[in-house]
């Protein structure tokens, strides 16, 4: 999927929604402890391992396997630079999110450099879909990818995402 460039199309403004609903904020699930900066050349599996390991969940190995299994069925990619590895696990109470940023300015524009890995409760499809939708929505913000890739510290990442979501 690559529908990031939506400015190229003509469309109506959609008008009033059928009913407003509170959307999930990505920043509400983000902790500075779960944000990592990777140097170039780190294999994807290694990054996923690190990201899963940072989450406060009981079985990291089970979670990693679930994420890798889901990736095998087709990666979730929104824009070429952003990958959303995810899985649904039994017994989780809520969404657990970690973010990986590949610090490699020389990397081709099309290589995934932002990883938003999240785990969601198997029993709650709604929150899982809402969160995917919220992530996708967040990525539509103008200059979001470039801004995030230029950051150097976890607290800046949280701050940037909050700032974008506050502008919502």
């Amino acid at each position, binding site marked *: 999927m690559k529908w990031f460039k*939506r400015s*190229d*199309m003509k469309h109506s403004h959609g008008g009033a929604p059928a009913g*407003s609903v509170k959307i999930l904020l990505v920043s509400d699930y983000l902790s500075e402890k779960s944000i990592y900066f990777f140097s170039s050349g780190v294999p994807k599996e290694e990054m996923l391992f690190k990201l899963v390991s940072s989450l406060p969940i009981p079985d990291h190995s089970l979670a990693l396997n679930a994420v890798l299994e889901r990736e095998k069925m087709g990666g*979730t990619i929104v824009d070429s630079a952003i990958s959303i590895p995810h899985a649904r696990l039994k017994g989780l109470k809520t969404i657990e999110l970690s973010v990986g940023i590949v610090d490699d300015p020389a990397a081709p524009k*099309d290589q995934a450099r932002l990883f938003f890995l999240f785990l969601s409760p198997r029993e709650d499809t709604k929150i*899982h879909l809402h969160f995917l939708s919220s992530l*996708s929505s967040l990525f539509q913000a103008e200059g979001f990818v470039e801004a995030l890739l230029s950051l150097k510290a976890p607290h800046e990442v949280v701050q940037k995402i909050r700032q974008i979501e506050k*502008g*919502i």
Partner: protein
Amino acid sequence: METISNKKTARNVILVTTAMLSFISFWRAAAIVLCDIASTVYYIGGIAEHAIGKAAPWFILGVMLFAYTVRAIYIESCGMFVRGGVYRVVKEAMGGTIAKLSVSALMFDYVLTGPISAVSAGQYLVGLLNTTFPRFHISLQLPSNLFAIFFAIAVTIYFWWQNVKGIPESSDKALKIMACTTVMGVIIIIWSVATLWVRGVHLPPFAPVFNKESLGWLYPLKDRIKPLGLIGITIAFGHSLLAMSGEETLAQVYREIEAPKLKNLKRAAFIVFMYCLLLTALGSFFAIMIIPDSVRMSQYSDNLLSGLTMYLIGPEPLRLLFQAFVVFTGFLILAGAVNTSIIGSNGVLNRLGEDGILPEFLRRPHPRFGTSSRLIDLTVILQLITIILCQGNIYVLGEAYAFGVIWSFVFKALAVVILRYKDKTPREWKVPLNFHIGKTEFPFGLASIFAVLFLTASLNLVTKQVATISGTIFTVVFFAVFVGSEKVHMKKHRKESLEMQHGGHTDRVNLNRLDVLNPKDCGCTKPRRILVAVRDPNNLTHLGKALSEIDEETTDVVVMTSKVATGLYLEGDLTQTTKEEEKLFTKIIAEAEKIGHSVIPLYVPSNDPFYAMARVAFDLEAEELVVGRSGKFDPEIQMEQIALAWGAVRPMSGRPLRIRIIWEGAEFKEDVA
């Protein structure tokens, strides 16, 4: 002429003329093109040396430089027609008959791209195995050609099935393949330079050496042909020309390139040019300069890059390891080219089908996957026959292959020249070197490119016997099929028009074009609306269920079908309905009439079905999106894809959409914010 009764039975379908496309960067576009064009590095060296001797690299270099000018023709035509492939451009310039002829030649190119790539991959693999076995004291030597045949058949069948299932073409995969090829290319260049540094540089001779095979019907005149005269150079050039096969892919990815389109197309073309120049041309030079003459053609003519790895400096295990990497990369890129050939030919055949010049039965969609499987079957059957007939011989394949490559370029170049006079609308970009005398423009650059192509193609006709005989037979047969089925189609069309006047089965579709989608212009008048997405006329369970549950007093039902086309399939005209789509709309309306509700049919061209559904649901302020179960995805993943798409189009403040996936006896329903 449309009769009054036709008008009465015709159904109104709203066509959203602004295709709901998502776009790819020029890097991705270049990667897709390179997956086709750069794969020739694996076999061009051996084929060209077989024909013209050690001068081959010079001519491959010449072809690579000339390819940039051919790319300029594609850039000009893409600026004029978003779908600027051979068929469309030639048809516009010279009419349907010549267009059918040119597309027959192009089909020959596509049909041979698969076998030559697959057989070449097999030759590389068997070469590696036969080199490795003795190192492990295995006294087994596999028969190269037989192995290559079986391997090629297996690869072709694999991609046939992938295409029948409709696995989308992935620019991600193309990028990964090109990343791998780049690593291989950089290592080859550095290692070869180091080897030449140690052993000394001995450039190959410039003069080609012809033999009976390479002169073909001109062989009796061999003493009169000067190797470095105009004829000699052109013949040698013609034998190296297939190094630039795959240019057509550039035109076919154009529609998907992100804005600014033409600038990005030029960038992609430049990347392709530099890449091929470095990889294909340099690779050929290194092979000639590094592999000893005594073994190069006798042992490595079909896997020249493997031979190169074995004669680089350094320890043997390291060289063997590198050969394995070269073979692995070759497998990826050559297999990619097999896939591209199936996709490309299917795209072109679909385009012809839309113009009614293919038999109706060939265009029927696959009952489960909805793909044009019969067209895919046709291409793959021809490819399998080619693999068996060639007996694993790359040279024979290469010789024949050049026919389709050069003649499709000739037609394309001629068409662009003619369009300079026929269509005077301002061009976004023109092939340079245009001179004016008074108000008349003389496209010197364009005409020169055409002249080179035409001269080369004409000489190829008399020197490449295999290509001329097989290519002519193939082209004539395909041309005859196209002409014949067009006549049948027109006859049938007239008959159907008459039948419709007397209450026929398929409703005519009137397309009411709409640039910007909104509820009012769509004809929505009720406070609530639901969107039902359909694709398969035999799977309308979800439509039936949705219709049976709604309150017609308060709810409009919009039924959309998305004409999805990505990558090479974008060659087709997305704003025309096909016979199958008309049948789909007929069935939709019949289903609605059976239940007793009216529906608003909507036809949306897009290259991403999930995005299109979400976009339409948003623009129409639909509360519910109802879809059938996907043949490709698990419902859970299908739901995720829609949720992601919804997130991409909905306002940030959030707006709920109920997504329902309905299939026989089951439903998966969820609200997404």
